[in-house]
């Protein structure tokens, strides 16, 4: 044979039993020119930031939130300032309460969608393949969402509070103290953002957008509505408790105009929602680890 070739190992398929002896270490194969980066939480945060800003539902929920908070807040200020009613030495900050209460539903919806929509679309499988550390995925989502929700809420609440304060100066409202300002802006924004974070965690547990949103809206409104219809004397205590610890009443504590004189006061609502959210987060994390995606 003129073109005889030296005996060659056959194709990789046939040489299978020897593959471990091949050069390139124990696991030979293709080596990419792309630099290998050890992925960490920073990468996950960048990824989640891209995700949250690249879907229209974020723009919708936050857009409606801004409209509600600014619209209702400014309307309330205008009504009071154009009427002859006197604020009777009350803090003008409480005018911002109702807009933020309605707006919180948008933040809760966005929170749920951040996690649950990935299950609805199947995106979660792609996410978990790209980042096998489930704790990192949940943490990145929680951080990105919380910072976004807090920033937007704070900006809106602070703006509305300042404008309202200026509008109702002539109606006999007193000038709020620094700590009242702090509670009605930073405090209530932390509360609303935590409420959103709780929704995000519930979304991760329920894995179903509509279901989780229903649960959260129910949590927001049901205790107050149920309490309003509890006329029986025997249920008086329960009724009181439901009223005092309902989310709207807890939110109003930040404006010092609680429905009742007992119940949570000062910064207590913030510690309550923080405790509940931390507990739910721990539960969501445990479930995320044990469940199949």
């Amino acid at each position, binding site marked *: 044979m003129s073109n005889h070739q030296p005996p060659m190992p056959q*194709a*990789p*398929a*046939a040489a*299978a039993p020897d*593959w471990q002896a091949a050069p390139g270490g*124990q*696991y*030979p*194969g*293709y*080596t*990419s*020119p*792309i*630099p*290998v*980066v*050890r*992925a960490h939480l920073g*990468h*996950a945060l*960048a*990824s*989640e930031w*891209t*995700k949250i800003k*690249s*879907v*229209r*539902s974020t723009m919708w929920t936050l857009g409606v939130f801004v409209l509600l908070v600014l619209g209702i807040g400014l309307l309330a200020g205008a009504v009071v300032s154009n009427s002859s009613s006197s604020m009777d030495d009350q803090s003008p900050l409480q005018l911002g309460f109702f807009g933020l209460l309605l707006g919180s539903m948008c933040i809760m919806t966005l929170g749920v969608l951040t996690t649950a*929509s*990935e299950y609805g*679309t*199947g*995106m*979660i*499988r*792609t*996410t*978990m*393949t*790209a*980042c*096998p*550390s489930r704790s990192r995925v949940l943490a990145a989502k929680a951080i990105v969402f919380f910072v976004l929700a807090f920033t937007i809420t704070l900006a809106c609440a602070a703006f509305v509070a300042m404008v309202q304060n200026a509008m109702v100066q002539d109606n006999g409202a007193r000038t709020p103290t620094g700590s009242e300002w702090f509670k009605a802006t930073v405090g209530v924004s932390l509360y609303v953002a935590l409420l959103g974070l709780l929704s995000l965690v519930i979304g991760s547990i329920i894995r179903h957008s509509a279901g989780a949103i229903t649960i959260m809206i129910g949590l927001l409104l049901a205790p107050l509505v149920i309490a309003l219809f509890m006329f029986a004397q025997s249920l008086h205590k329960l009724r009181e408790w439901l009223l005092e610890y309902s989310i709207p009443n807890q939110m109003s504590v930040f404006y010092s105009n609680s429905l009742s004189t007992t119940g949570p006061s000062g910064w207590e609502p913030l510690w309550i929602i923080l405790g509940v959210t931390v507990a739910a987060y721990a539960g969501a994390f445990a479930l995320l680890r*044990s469940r*199949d*995606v």
Partner: protein
Amino acid sequence: MIELAGLTKRYGEKVAVDHLTFRVRPGIVTGFLGPNGAGKSTTMRMILGLDHPTAGDVRIDGKHYDQLADPLTYIGALLDAKAVHGGRSAYNHLLCLAQSNGIPRSRVGEVLEAVGLTAVARKKAKGFSYGMGQRLGIAGALLGDPRILMFDEPVNGLDPEGIHWIRNLMKSLAAQGRTVFVSSHLMSEMALTADHLVVIGQGRLLADTSMADFIRQNARAYVRIRSPQRERLLDVLHEDGITVVEAGGDALEVDGGKAEQIGELAARHGIALHELSTQQASLEEAFMRLTAESVEYHAQAGPEPESAPRDWGAGWKGV
């Protein structure tokens, strides 16, 4: 290199994957074949750490999936085309994946170009056809230029041009030394792309063999004969020591490629032949024989057609 050792997944009473043990080696395309519901996708999800195995172990180059520091640059997977948020554009979908693994942003444009989606990069994924969704999934798998690639039913929904493209893609990826693991329920598709074959049915390993061996063992060649003097022909063949199988209708079948011998024999005895042809049993048939017992979802069989090859029915009872 993917190594499965006794991998098992149970959902309550139902066993989806039953003690699977095999290796997927680099440098070749390994086909992962099984009927619907055989456990292919479940196996792939366990490889990717999405589902927890009930028992057994699966490792990628010696590591569990969640121990990979750079998963996307190590292993790229197309699980199903639906694993995308429909409201996000193709570009942003790939960008968030790239960012999660620290892959340079420039790769996004490169893989979009590679799968032919550049023109619709800014369009929302929910407007994509199934084939385009499949291409987006493949782009995601290629994003990290990984050394291992897994494709679950990649040709589904692709047009002929797309099927041709994915076949060549898989072959070229393997030729670069990468591990390519591709599932399908179509034997004919695997015969064209895979070098090695892993067949499962009802979660159990049925075959782990090279494609060439599988073809050699399963692609039965036989000679099909029809003659108006059927009885005489049978006698003549019998005298010559040739084993004949009576197929449906008036046809006879002889295993092995002996067409010339039979033709000459018939001529010597003056027997007229209406047909003398060498036939090749399809690999699809071989695959169906192999998995017949383990097909999960049997369609209700209609009345068997008269002309069904005899061997067909035998396979269902015999295997």
